[in-house]
């Protein structure tokens, strides 16, 4: 059961299509786990539809209709098909970005219990990465200069404010410090979307900070 959801104002931005692509992908991932938020986004879309119906119509030339009618028989563009070999638990969009098994990704080891794999979304301002935390492992205490959005994909973790399981969505802003620990029993995999780099706060981990510079794109 998913217990942690994006705030409503954030879902509204998602539905209106104004979120940056990396954040949008993270919210879409949450929706594939969460029926409550899917129902809410349906309503938010109706609000969009109601605004749309009330717009002041702008004249469209007859030639535009002719162009469209002439193109109705064009072949449809091919759509993405799910990768058969991939982890079937993943939401479709993430499946597309990950394109294979977790094991096949390029993982960069940051500490003994933390590896990171950077995925490409094309978002020029946000890093979109998978964090892999060993069973029971801890991410050293850290902070951010910006926002950090997290979606749990596998396993789970706990931090100062709660426990999180697959489908749970979290946003942290600014300089809160936290130190998540993976739950016992399974490796934890999370998706993290950042607009400023992670900063380890403890002296013995700070030397790692240069490794964590933001990799947007």
């Amino acid at each position, binding site marked *: 059961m998913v217990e942690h959801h994006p*705030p*409503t*104002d954030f879902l*509204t*931005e998602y539905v*209106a*299509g*104004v979120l940056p*692509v990396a954040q*949008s*992908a993270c919210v*879409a991932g949450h*929706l*594939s*786990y*969460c*029926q409550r938020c*899917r*129902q809410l986004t*349906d*309503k*938010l*879309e*109706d*609000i*969009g*539809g*109601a*605004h*749309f*119906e*009330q*717009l*002041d*119509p*702008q*004249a*469209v030339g007859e030639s*535009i*209709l002719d162009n*469209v*009618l002439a193109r*109705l028989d*064009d072949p*449809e563009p091919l*759509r*993405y098909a799910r990768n058969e070999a991939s982890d*079937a*638990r993943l*939401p*479709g*969009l993430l499946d*597309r*970005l990950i394109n294979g098994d977790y094991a096949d990704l390029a993982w960069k080891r940051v500490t003994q219990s933390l590896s990171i794999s950077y995925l*490409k*979304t*094309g978002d*020029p301002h946000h890093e979109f990465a998978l964090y892999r935390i060993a069973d029971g492992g801890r991410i050293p205490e850290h902070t951010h200069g910006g926002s950090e959005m997290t979606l749990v994909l596998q396993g789970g973790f706990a931090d100062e404010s709660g426990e999180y399981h697959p*489908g749970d969505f979290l946003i942290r802003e600014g300089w809160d410090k936290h130190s998540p620990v993976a739950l016992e029993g399974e490796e934890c995999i999370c998706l993290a979307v950042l607009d400023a780099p992670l900063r380890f706060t403890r002296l013995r981990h700070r030397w790692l900070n240069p490794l964590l510079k933001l990799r947007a*794109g």
Partner: protein
Amino acid sequence: MATKDNAGKSAVANGRGKWNVPTGRRTDEWSEALVLVGESQDRAAFTRFFRHFAPLIKAFALSGSSLSATHADELVQEVMLKVWQKAGGFNPEKAAASTWVYTIARNCRTDMFRRLQKFDTALASDDFELESEEEESFVVLHTRRGAERVRELLGDLPPDQAQILGKVYMEGKSHSEAAAELDLPLGTVKSRVRLAIQKLQGLMEA
């Protein structure tokens, strides 16, 4: 949450019959036209649909004045072609035709913005749609969805809340852009959005 496998199977098992629930069948003209387009590639119905919706799509393209008239016409064509291609997937029990067209127009506009900004992404907005197996398979929607109902309710919102929803939904402004434009703190914009949605949501369920 049900595993995807189960959800997929139940969707198949329920087939088309899954929507035959008494949630108030939508009989408005545009939903009917869209169903005709989807089921029998009816060009006359499509043309009627075009004449009604193309001017709204153009208005949507031009609100926020970030697209030129040429791009707006291009967007109208893109959206209407998608309407033709996707009409088979339209479900009148699930959404009003106007909401359905709105989501297509929104996706196309977002993608057009990104193209114009030479934004290098492999993701199109359509990729964000949930796969059908991820959608509700047999869950009855308890609230009758309807843009027309929401339209009535929108008139009851305080003007300051309505103004911000318009900026976000139609002009495609983020909350921080809306805040900058209206010279308001971001927190105020967010709380107005939350209050507006809360109110609408309550009324939609009532």
